């Protein structure tokens, strides 16, 4: 995977030449790193592809301001495997082993932004697995969600579901 640091964001080029199908696509991460990928990879990313389609392929450099250069290689790796039809249980297990909670969340948001259905489904499952059988407080912390129930609302809920608040796993503070 070739990468180069683009010195200026105005290096964004709108190619005037007739785009050939083999032209690579440059994805620019939020921290200005350029990732060159095959057009087939871009096809996996619906957001990127619709961008390319709508400009009749004239734009081959796509800025992705919300995706960092840390996350983008993971996304590209997954897309490459997906195209090759090599998404296996083993690959997914290895893939997710490398990621801590924070990275899973960031990748999930990236997948959502890029609209990659398969990756989104896969990460949804990963997230679901990681919050399964955890306390409410753990789930709130995991998602960074403020508890914005009013005290009255929460008291009412606790009462309604009083019989359920036992028997959850103790929270793990640090999970990798």
């Amino acid at each position, binding site marked *: 995977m070739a990468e180069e640091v683009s010195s200026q964001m105005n290096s964004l080029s709108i190619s005037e030449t007739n785009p050939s199908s083999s032209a690579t696509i440059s994805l620019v991460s939020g921290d200005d790193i350029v990732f060159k990928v095959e057009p087939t990879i871009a096809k996996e990313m619906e957001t990127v592809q619709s961008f390319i389609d709508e*400009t009749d392929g004239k734009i081959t450099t796509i*800025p992705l301001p919300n995706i960092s250069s840390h996350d983008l290689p993971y996304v590209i790796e997954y897309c490459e495997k997906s195209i090759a039809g090599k998404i296996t249980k083993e690959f997914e297990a290895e893939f997710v082993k490398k990621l801590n909670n924070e990275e899973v969340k*960031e990748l999930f948001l990236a997948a959502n*932004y890029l609209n990659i259905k398969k990756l989104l489904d896969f990460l949804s499952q990963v997230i679901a*697995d990681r919050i399964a059988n955890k306390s409410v407080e753990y789930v709130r912390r995991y998602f960074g969600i403020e508890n*914005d129930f009013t005290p009255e609302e929460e008291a009412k809920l606790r009462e309604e579901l009083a*019989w359920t608040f*036992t028997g*959850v796993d103790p929270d793990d503070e640090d999970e990798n």
Partner: protein
Amino acid sequence: MKLTIHQNHVFIVNSKYFNFSTNKTLSFCFTFSIMSSSCLSLVMEIDNLEITADPNWLELPRDITMNILQRLDTVALVTSASVVCPLWWNICKDPHMWTTIDMMNNLSLTHSELAYSSRLEKICRYAVDRSCGHLKDIYIKSFGTDGVLLHIANSASQLRCIRLEGCHDISSDVFMEIVTKQPFLEEIDICHCSNLRTYFFEHVGKCCPLLKSLKFSPCIEAVGENKSDDVAFAIAKSMSMLRHLTILNNQLTNNGLLAVLDGCPLLEFLDIRGCLHIIFDRSLEKRCNTQIKELRFPTEYIAHKFNFGDYMYYLQLKLRLVILE
């Protein structure tokens, strides 16, 4: 200055929109306006922007959040996810969140007390009520009584799949009553439920004309001396739509198997491990090969064995309960 996730949403929604747009001119205008307004301008100013690394999960589209929450099992959904925040509480009010009740991941009974299984029962009932009749699939392990099952049968009329494992408190009579009310059942999977026997198969076949998959693993480990093709004939007679049949440690013979193959022309997966009265000669093998895509032979090893220790523990608990009463 911060670039919030909100702007992304605008962008994604719009790009989705012109995906479906057929009017080229219109879509070009959209493209241009989006390019200029949300993308190019951002690109130009990107150096001045600080991108927030902490996007608010509550701003994710509702269907994305549902996609995650739907993957949780029922216990997690009831006890944790639904009370995280008002938005999630709201999402969990949707009956479609409860079309599957998955309570397979419970600890086995040996690790718990009866109080625990009665708590699971309450959670199950709560989830059934939440589904408002939209319940389709139900997976229950190690708890579950006739009462719970009747509650399910009375609340749902469109059950697609029932999977029971180690539910010793469920009786054959009640199970029969339930299938009577579920004409859309396609899958039945009964594993190690000591009170559920094979004699109701014909009744099941009559009540569930759409049945595609039947799996039955009895508690009995080894098949005895007696041969009997009654169950096989019942299947052959009443379950003509069957595609998948797992029937372990059964007493059926070659005759019974041939009847099943004839009576269930769509059958393509057959698991008859432990059915030791079936003798695979050349003609039977040939017959199977013409129809079955995946075959598990009678002599193959059964990995997921009935846990007698668990069962003895269960009986002990029951006994204690009877004495207490």
